[in-house]
């Protein structure tokens, strides 16, 4: 018998702090698998966010630089401009990417910054205890939208990925989901392509991953993954929004 699936080398052999059924841990693993497979450990640098994933450096066995809330893309820009031959990626949550860091994100994308952003959208602020995020669904109850998100009060779920897809500096923009093993495999493929796009110097690449937060959604992991597929994917359709390589093929 041969091993067909094992824990990636770049994922430190320690238990993580994420809640049971958290999407972060899946995405961490996918990234580490890719770092191993693509032999990137010696030239990859990760900028995790402020949020649950701030502790990513406890799990990633490659270089990691902390960021202030929302500043990931600016710090990544500094890294990339200083070391153009390195692979730089930000790992950001919905608050980090789409609320406090919207300006940094949009402008990095618009400059065609040759960096990659992994944007984990779970429609809620996890680390601070389940407050409303810009991506919170209409009607979704959070600790700061106890009556459910109302568009007339809190506005609409922000689709930052669609926004970024309109920018000429963005080369590869895609939304994926963790809802089942097939979609997780798609997510891995998307992240791989995003890194390849960066290495090709084509511009900004963004992978939005719809990810469950069972704890703050107050459901079981099983139910959370079902919700992901049944509700979130309706509001946030998965698929490739922009792919510069596809254009070239035509």
């Amino acid at each position: 018998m041969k091993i067909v699936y094992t824990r990636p080398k770049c994922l430190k052999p320690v238990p993580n702090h994420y809640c049971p059924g958290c999407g972060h841990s899946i995405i961490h693993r996918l990234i580490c698998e890719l770092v191993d497979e693509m032999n990137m450990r010696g030239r990859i640098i990760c900028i995790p966010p402020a949020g649950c994933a701030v502790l990513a450096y406890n799990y990633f066995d490659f270089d990691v630089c902390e960021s202030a809330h929302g500043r990931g893309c600016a710090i990544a820009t500094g890294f990339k401009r200083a070391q153009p031959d390195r692979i730089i990626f930000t790992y950001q949550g919905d608050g980090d990417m789409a609320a406090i860091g919207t300006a940094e994100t949009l402008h990095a994308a618009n400059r065609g910054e040759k960096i990659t952003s992994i944007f984990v959208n779970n429609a809620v602020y996890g680390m601070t205890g389940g407050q409303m995020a810009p991506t919170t669904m209409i009607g979704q109850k959070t600790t700061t939208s106890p009556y459910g998100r109302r568009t007339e009060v809190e506005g609409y779920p922000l689709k930052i990925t669609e926004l970024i897809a309109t920018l000429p500096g963005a080369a590869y923009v895609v939304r994926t989901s963790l809802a089942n093993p097939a979609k997780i495999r798609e997510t891995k493929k998307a992240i791989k392509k995003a890194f390849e796009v960066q290495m090709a110097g084509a511009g900004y690449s963004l992978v939005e991953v719809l990810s469950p937060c069972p704890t703050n959604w107050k459901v079981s992991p099983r139910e959370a993954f079902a919700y992901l597929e049944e509700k979130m994917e309706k509001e946030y359709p998965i698929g490739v929004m922009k792919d510069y390589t596809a254009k070239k093929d035509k």
Partner: protein
Amino acid sequence: MKGTDALGEAAIRAGCRCYFGYPITPQNEVPEYMSRRMQEVGGVFLQGESEIASINMVLGAAASGMRAMTSSSSPGISLKQEGLSFLAALELPAVIVNINRGGPGLGNIAPSQGDYYQATRGGGHGDYRMPVYAPAYVQELYDITMKSFDVADLYRTPVMILGDGMMGQIVEPIYLHERPDVEIPPKDYILDGAENRPSRIIKSLILDPVEMEEHNWKLKRKYDLMAHELPEWEEFMTNDAKLTIIAYGTAARIAKGAVKRARSEGLKVGLLRPITLWPFPEEAIRNLAKKTKLFLVFEMSTGQMIDDVRLAVEGKVPCEFYGRPGGVVPIPQEIARIIERYWLQKEL
């Protein structure tokens, strides 16, 4: 050479190869100069989308091992405070220039010294200090800019150069020398990919209070070392002075002119000019307090540095204050008149 150009050139010659900034008057000549020169020397110039983004780009470049800087003016520096706190916490070297303008709020674009508290008290959140240099002459601005990159690297700290609109706009002849030889320890903390080495982490999140406390004390030991090694000041005719003016930056230039006038009228007046605002040249002032009868602090603000002077003097000698906030730049005669008034009043 114009102040802002001298600053830019010194940075380039100090090996600064990354500049990130956002336009704000009265310091726009710095990014303009850097945008031209960085291209020539193969460095990075990038106009960020905001002050906040710019200082974080500096952070990224510093964590890459590059000499990096940003420049701004008062309202912009307020926005950079988050980044300053992080740079201090992460112990990353960087140079930040504040061409102080009138405030609070938008204020005006005239020279002011209203940001003294913000600069010397950190400005950002948390328990940190940051060296602050206040040059008064274009040559000194050039020299200090060059030096501040070394100080930043030697102590792994952000360093602020605090000038004002006058310092930036003024044109004075200067001598453009190369960077003096300063040995910088190897940067074994930078992130450049974990090729054939253990992975590295740059972080400031320390959830355990005991560990956080230890980190704070570690930083404090570094600040104590800086407080011991970095103070700089200039003394002018202080030896027999009965009245000593204390002023920095542009205010000190004016005060020097006033001292000369007073001296020509036979009044024994001197000037102490702090060049580092943090660490504050306390010892120099303490020593003068043994000789002089009265300190007169002159600032282009309503009185901020005077707090530090009083702390240094420890009540041994009276400290008076004269200030012109809001961007008003007085002439030496005006200060000379104030000197005369105190001279008579206090029967010196």
